[in-house]
């Protein structure tokens, strides 16, 4: 047994233990904190599986911003937490048996793999030079499966619409309740004044380098979203009203740009979302920059929640 494999065994066992602990822990707040730890462990597992792009996404979105969202939700629900009872023992036993059966089924699939593992890696690598990109994952996201990525942006916007529409009618167009956490002169204000510029440089770097190295618009956009949430929570910058027209343009800018580039493919290249030969990389970089901005705004507003007070200009 080699040392890296021993490390992997440790990681896998920790993941299962921490995941199980998250399910049985007393108190929602504790469970959410365990969830953040779990996300970081999961990012380590992704690095061990040679998927650095996914590891970055998991750390930023899966652990970071989801953790923030769930923490603030748990803090809000804590005052009114009601003790619910677990289902009766036979039902718990039955669901335990069912879940164990599903786990064993999956384990059998894992242990009896196909003779030749299916892979699209050679095809992706063979076509990668045409795009001019150096990162095969970026190639899949923005060239080979660009339609998925475009539709995913639409899903993000739809989710935001769903969140917004949960506001009472009289608050439509109002402001998410974010900036009520910090008193003036607070240490959080200091944090929000010092950190965001570094975060912006880092987000631009992530987006820019994504074409040839691990990284990209998703991870860069998430860093932007977190910096924005930080300055809003510290009260350094006010949360915008959701009726703000500039904000709405920012939200749709990335997907619209992507769609326009895609439609231009009909005239200039082989079809929808095809890039003209030789221009693939610059077009993809432009689309990624637009998407990073829109993803940043959308993720930030998703985490901020529906408007909770009226806008006072």
């Amino acid at each position, binding site marked *: 047994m080699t040392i890296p*494999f021993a490390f992997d065994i440790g990681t896998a066992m920790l993941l299962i233990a921490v995941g199980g602990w998250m399910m049985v822990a007393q108190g929602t707040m504790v469970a959410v904190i365990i969830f953040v730890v779990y996300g970081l462990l999961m990012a380590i597992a992704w690095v061990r599986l040679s998927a650095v792009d*996914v590891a970055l996404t998991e750390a930023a979105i899966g652990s970071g911003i989801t953790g923030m969202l*769930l923490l603030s939700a748990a803090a809000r629900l804590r005052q009114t937490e009601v003790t619910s009872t677990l289902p009766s023992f036979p039902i718990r036993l039955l669901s335990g048996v069912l879940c164990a059966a599903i786990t064993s089924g999956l384990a059998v699939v894992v242990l009896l793999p196909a003779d030749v593992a299916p892979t699209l890696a050679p095809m992706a690598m063979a076509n990668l030079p045409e795009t001019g990109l150096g990162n095969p994952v970026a*190639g899949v996201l923005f060239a080979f499966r660009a339609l998925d990525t475009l539709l995913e942006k639409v899903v993000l916007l739809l*989710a935001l619409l769903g969140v917004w529409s949960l506001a009472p009618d009289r608050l439509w167009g109002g402001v998410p309740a974010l900036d009520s956490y910090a008193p003036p002169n607070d240490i959080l204000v200091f944090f929000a004044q010092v950190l965001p510029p570094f975060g912006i440089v880092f987000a631009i770097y992530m987006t820019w380098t994504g074409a040839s190295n691990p990284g990209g618009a998703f991870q860069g956009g998430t860093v932007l979203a977190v910096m924005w949430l930080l300055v809003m929570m510290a009260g350094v910058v006010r949360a915008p009203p959701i009726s703000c027209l500039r904000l709405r343009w920012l939200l749709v800018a990335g997907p619209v740009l992507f769609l326009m580039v895609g439609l231009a493919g009909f005239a200039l290249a082989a079809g929808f979302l095809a890039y003209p030969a030789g221009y693939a990389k610059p077009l993809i970089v432009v689309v990624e920059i637009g998407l990073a901005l829109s993803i940043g705004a959308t993720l930030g507003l998703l985490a901020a929640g529906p408007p909770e007070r009226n806008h006072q200009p």
Partner: protein
Amino acid sequence: MNSATLFGLCSAALVGLGLFGLIVRPEPLRKILAFNLLGSGVFLFFGVVARRGAAAGLGADPVPQALVITGIVVSFSATALAVALVLRLRKLTDEVTSGLGAASKAQEDGDHS
């Protein structure tokens, strides 16, 4: 046994744990957490498929990786929507139980018309 198989077994266990929590835990926020655990188990399974498909000089097949990245983002938006629903539901329940429900509902309807 190699690392990919190991994490494959791990993902199977995580899917089972997440599903169990989703069925058994009654609190809405715990269900959301369990859903995320279940989802991450499925993503990890994809990661194992990607690792086994390592070829052409890559450490892992990029196509499942890209799918997982898309999946993580979509799972976040689903979580955000679910959390907003839970918070709104709790607010409405509190208003109803504290007897304010009728008043605030009337006000909302007034704004609506």
